[in-house]
């Protein structure tokens, strides 16, 4: 990258910089006019200078050719102007003033937006370049990169550059011009005073930057410490388990505090020095008038200096310190951002960064990898000089199934990375057929080789997106175009180009369906299901699907299928005599297995304020309950519950786990409720205050008769609750439609999960093994109805979470394998990629992968040598060397290295 920030800015933005400069120059005359005009308004307009009496008239806006008299000998009038009387003249002047003000504001607007845009464009360019370089960091270097630090660099540290870039050239040009004019003016008035002023400016210009040097150094330290702090904070998050498990949170606190202290010290010193500089600066600026008044005054008294000239000098001087000071500030800022720039780009120049052409998506990748994969004299040495791989040479067929085994320190995992072209050998060559593997661009290696390492990274997207990730190399199909989008896209592309960014459309379809053996988005799910079956993830996806959501409008066929299952479920349960295990939602009946709130809402809340726990505060619900004559009943229920809770939890100490698990009331609130109960017993419910009533009303909402068995819900309450439910639904439909997806036996509920849609009710409490029986019945039902794949399809939308954290480690590895199988690479390299699975599953998946990849290459680096029997060829590694190779039967003999390793297991 360009080491000099200024050069970088100039190189990429000279046209815009010049345009802004021109704009500034154009604005100057108007600016000076606006400074002059108030004087004219007062002197001529109001005081009537030049008018003999108010009725006298004068020419307005008369214009002479500048220097006309000098050129032609007589004044040349370009425009005679309008002849106006004093009042008219005054009004014209004031209107001109407003007009000038508008023009000036207009200029300011254009200049500022221009600068802002320019700065942002450069910032965009810089950020892109940094991320682009990050993407080209070689994998071995990536291990040394701290992600939080890189993130702060790209996001925060370059931010101030954007503000500066707009001013990079305009400010010095503009302020410099001002300062030089003022200086020249003083010099014209009096050479000696001018020289004095110049001398002091020179001292200022020399001294101040010098004093600022340590500040810059401190600024650099501050940037580094702040960046490291960001890195440490990220480590605290990453190492959370270790920190809690080892009780080292206080060590971490101490570390963070010491860093904060260092930042404070640096900051403190910066302040001291900065304000010292300001002090000196101000002092020097005030020294000049002192010399003018004092020295110049004495000269004037003695008659050596004309008083008029002295006053002119003093007046001219008032224009000098401002620009000088700002110039010095600008210089300071320049140094500051240069440091920031240096510090950032330094981190983005690893020695062996990939060439951009290695990642060019349009490089030809049509030639399959075939023939022999041959290594000759391949060695790998790490930064600390360890020989990880020692001059390995072998040749294998690309389409063969190869196992590489060896002890864990044999270097086999490094060999895996080399074969996948993810790291480069220190010496030696790796060739595929006629081609040099290390010279192949990623468009070939990344599409024709599959690589599964020990830890698979999953992006925080859906399962489907993660599986398709390996097929997304470049935009292949245009997204749906609307005229607005096309226009927006055109502007977007133009702006991207101005900032030197590539213009690939992220919203386009990047997925190479053909590479996965599908013809398009329509049938890719079939391929995905196949692969999920292969890696034994279909059951997981099925479960995700049951707990997942679909939009009934977007997928009416799935919704219909699920409704069919809903209708069939009771019949299926009846076969097992288990029909009483599910109590369905019936719009006309109270469901004892659901809470009162669920019975009243009778739907899935979609909006805040309609959540079950917020229902007591919901105005509409309160009104409906009042009309249904339930409000007082609910308060009575609340009193009953409170009485029971007070009775049975009275002796338990606060913080007892029972409160959390079973109580309707927090331990802290129990005394309040005891108070309410006492009050009601003495004075009746009328004595309760509104907040008490609200607290009591909240209790019964989570009461479920079947579960809590306090005998509070009788038939009258049931009837009224059902009436209230209907009233509520009708009102809601008018007032806030869509806030709650009301349960409708005939309709799919998009706000509820697939499982809830099928179940459409509650599993009965207190029925032995109800959950298992119902779950099994549901699974069998979906199978017989042929809906299993539909559910799995819905499960593909399951979000895996950050880094796949919502999946288990085994699921992550299986998905990683599935992603590689789906891609159908010419050569699949599995670098001990199933290590977290149990050995039986490892063997099973290994066998399935090999069966599926008949005719395709597989290189499997195995942790357990036992399973290498399935491969046609085995390479045995020890201490960075290949010590044996051949078929399993050839090698599996007493005394061979392979049998030694197997015996050691």
């Amino acid at each position, binding site marked *: 990258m360009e080491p000099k920030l200024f050069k970088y800015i100039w190189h990429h933005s000279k046209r815009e910089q010049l345009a802004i400069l021109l704009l500034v120059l154009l604005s100057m005359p108007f600016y000076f006019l606006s400074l002059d005009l108030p004087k004219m308004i007062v002197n001529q307009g109001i005081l009537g200078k030049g008018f003999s009496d108010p009725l006298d008239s004068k020419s307005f806006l008369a214009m002479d050719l500048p220097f006309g008299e000098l050129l032609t000998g007589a004044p040349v009038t370009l425009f005679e102007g309008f002849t106006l009387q004093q009042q008219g003249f005054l009004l014209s002047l004031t209107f001109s003033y407003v007009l000038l003000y508008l023009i000036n504001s207009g200029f300011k607007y254009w200049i500022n937006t221009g600068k802002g845009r320019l700065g942002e464009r450069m910032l965009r360019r810089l950020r892109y370049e940094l991320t682009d370089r990050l993407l080209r960091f070689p994998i071995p270097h990536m291990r040394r990169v701290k992600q939080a630090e890189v993130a702060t660099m790209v996001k925060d540290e370059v931010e101030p550059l954007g503000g500066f870039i707009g001013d990079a050239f305009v400010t010095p040009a503009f302020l410099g011009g001002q300062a030089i004019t003022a200086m020249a003016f003083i010099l014209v008035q009096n050479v000696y005073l001018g020289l004095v002023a110049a001398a002091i400016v020179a001292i200022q210009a020399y001294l101040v930057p010098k004093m600022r040097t340590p500040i810059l150094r401190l600024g650099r330290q501050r940037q580094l410490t702040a960046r490291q702090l960001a890195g440490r904070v990220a480590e605290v998050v990453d190492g959370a388990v270790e920190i809690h498990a080892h009780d080292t949170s206080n060590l971490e606190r101490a570390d963070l505090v010491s860093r904060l202290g260092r930042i404070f010290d640096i900051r403190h010193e910066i302040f001291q020095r900065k304000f010292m500089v300001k002090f000196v600066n101000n002092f020097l600026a005030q020294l000049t008038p002192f010399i003018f008044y004092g020295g110049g005054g004495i000269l004037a008294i003695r008659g050596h200096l004309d008083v008029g000239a002295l006053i002119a000098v003093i007046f001219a001087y008032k224009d000098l310190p401002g620009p000088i000071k700002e110039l010095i500030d600008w210089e300071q800022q320049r140094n500051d951002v240069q440091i920031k720039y240096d510090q950032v780009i330094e981190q983005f120049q690893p020695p062996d960064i990939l060439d951009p052409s290695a990642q060019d998506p349009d490089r030809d990748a049509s030639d399959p990898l075939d023939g022999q994969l041959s290594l000759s004299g391949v060695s790998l040495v790490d930064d600390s000089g360890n020989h990880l791989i020692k001059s390995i040479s072998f040749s294998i067929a690309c389409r063969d199934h190869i196992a590489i085994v060896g002890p864990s320190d044999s270097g086999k995992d490094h060999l895996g990375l080399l074969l996948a072209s993810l790291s480069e050998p220190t010496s030696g060559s790796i060739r595929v057929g006629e081609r040099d593997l290390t010279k192949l661009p990623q468009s070939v290696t990344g599409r024709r080789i599959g690589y599964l390492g020990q830890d698979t990274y999953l992006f925080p997207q859906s399962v489907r997106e993660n599986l398709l990730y390996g097929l997304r190399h470049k935009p292949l199909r245009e997204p749906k175009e609307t005229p607005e989008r096309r226009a927006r896209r055109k502007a977007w592309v133009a702006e991207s180009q101005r900032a030197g960014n590539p213009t690939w459309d992220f919203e386009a379809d990047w997925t190479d369906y053909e590479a996965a053996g599908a013809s398009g988005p329509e049938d890719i799910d079939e391929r995905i299901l196949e692969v999920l079956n292969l890696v034994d993830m279909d059951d997981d996806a099925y479960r995700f699907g049951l707990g997942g959501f679909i939009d009934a409008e977007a997928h009416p066929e799935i919704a219909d299928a699920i409704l069919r299952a809903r209708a069939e479920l009771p019949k299926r349960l009846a076969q097992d005599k288990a029909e009483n295990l599910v109590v369905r939602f019936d719009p006309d009946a109270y469901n004892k297995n659901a809470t009162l709130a669920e019975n009243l809402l009778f739907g899935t809340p979609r909006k805040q304020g309609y959540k079950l726990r917020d229902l007591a505060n919901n105005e509409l619900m309160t009104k409906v309950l009042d009309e249904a004559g339930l409000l007082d009943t609910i308060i009575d229920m609340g009193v009953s519950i409170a009485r029971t809770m007070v*009775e*049975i939890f009275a002796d338990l100490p606060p913080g007892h786990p029972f409160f959390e698990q079973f109580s309707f009331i927090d331990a802290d609130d129990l005394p309040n409720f005891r108070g309410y109960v006492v009050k009601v017993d003495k004075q009746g419910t009328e004595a309760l205050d509104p907040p008490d009533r609200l607290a009591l009303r909240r209790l019964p909402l989570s009461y479920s008769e079947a579960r809590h*068995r*306090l005998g509070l819900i009788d038939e009258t309450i049931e009837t009224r609750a059902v009436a209230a439910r209907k009233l509520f639904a009708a009102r809601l439909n008018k007032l806030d439609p869509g806030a709650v997806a009301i349960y409708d036996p005939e309709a799919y509920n998009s706000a509820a999960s697939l499982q809830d849609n099928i179940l459409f009710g509650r599993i009965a409490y207190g029925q032995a093994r109800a959950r298992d029986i119902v779950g099994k019945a549901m699974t069998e039902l979906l199978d017989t109805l042929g809906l299993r794949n539909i559910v799995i399809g819905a499960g593909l939308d399951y979000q895996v979470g950050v880094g796949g954290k919502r999946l288990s480690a085994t699921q992550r590895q299986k998905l990683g394998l599935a992603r590689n199988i789906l891609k159908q690479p010419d050569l699949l390299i599995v670098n001990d990629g199933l290590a977290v699975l149990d050995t039986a599953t490892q063997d099973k998946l290994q066998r399935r992968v090999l069966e599926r990849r008949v005719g395709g290459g597989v290189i499997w680096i195995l942790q357990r040598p036992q399973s290498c029997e399935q491969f046609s060829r085995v390479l045995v590694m020890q201490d960075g060397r290949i010590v044996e190779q051949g078929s399993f039967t050839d090698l599996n003999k007493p005394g061979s290295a392979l049998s030694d390793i197997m015996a050691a297991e």
Partner: protein
Amino acid sequence: MSIDEEVEVLRKIPLFANIEPAKLKLMCFASQRMTFNPGQVLCGQGDVGDSAYIILEGKAEVVVENHAPLVVAQIGKNDIIGEIAILCDVPRTASVIATSELTALEITKDLFFRMVTDFPELGVEVMRVLAHRLEHTTALLLEARKGAK
């Protein structure tokens, strides 16, 4: 059956006879009432036991699976079963199978231990019941030895 009725049932069981009703109510409230159909298994021999059952209604038989299943006892209302497995972490020593529709209060291990630690009088009662059983078993053993001689 509401909680209050369950409390009444529990009070008739000797183990709980001396416990305050409020505490019994807490125990009922904190435990689940389970309904079993005839033929359903309350606990299976060899399983890890994580709860005891107090039978509120219905009948069940205790079956020991040795070469062939052998019914060793009939149990019914007010009986408590499965307490040994939760007390000493051994697998269930026998299966209990419902012979009629059966309702039982399921007391989880966690709940049981909490109740015993929070209300020591319950612990004493449990000891008393176990001691009685031990005495009964010892008597049976002596009788069996006499018979053998």
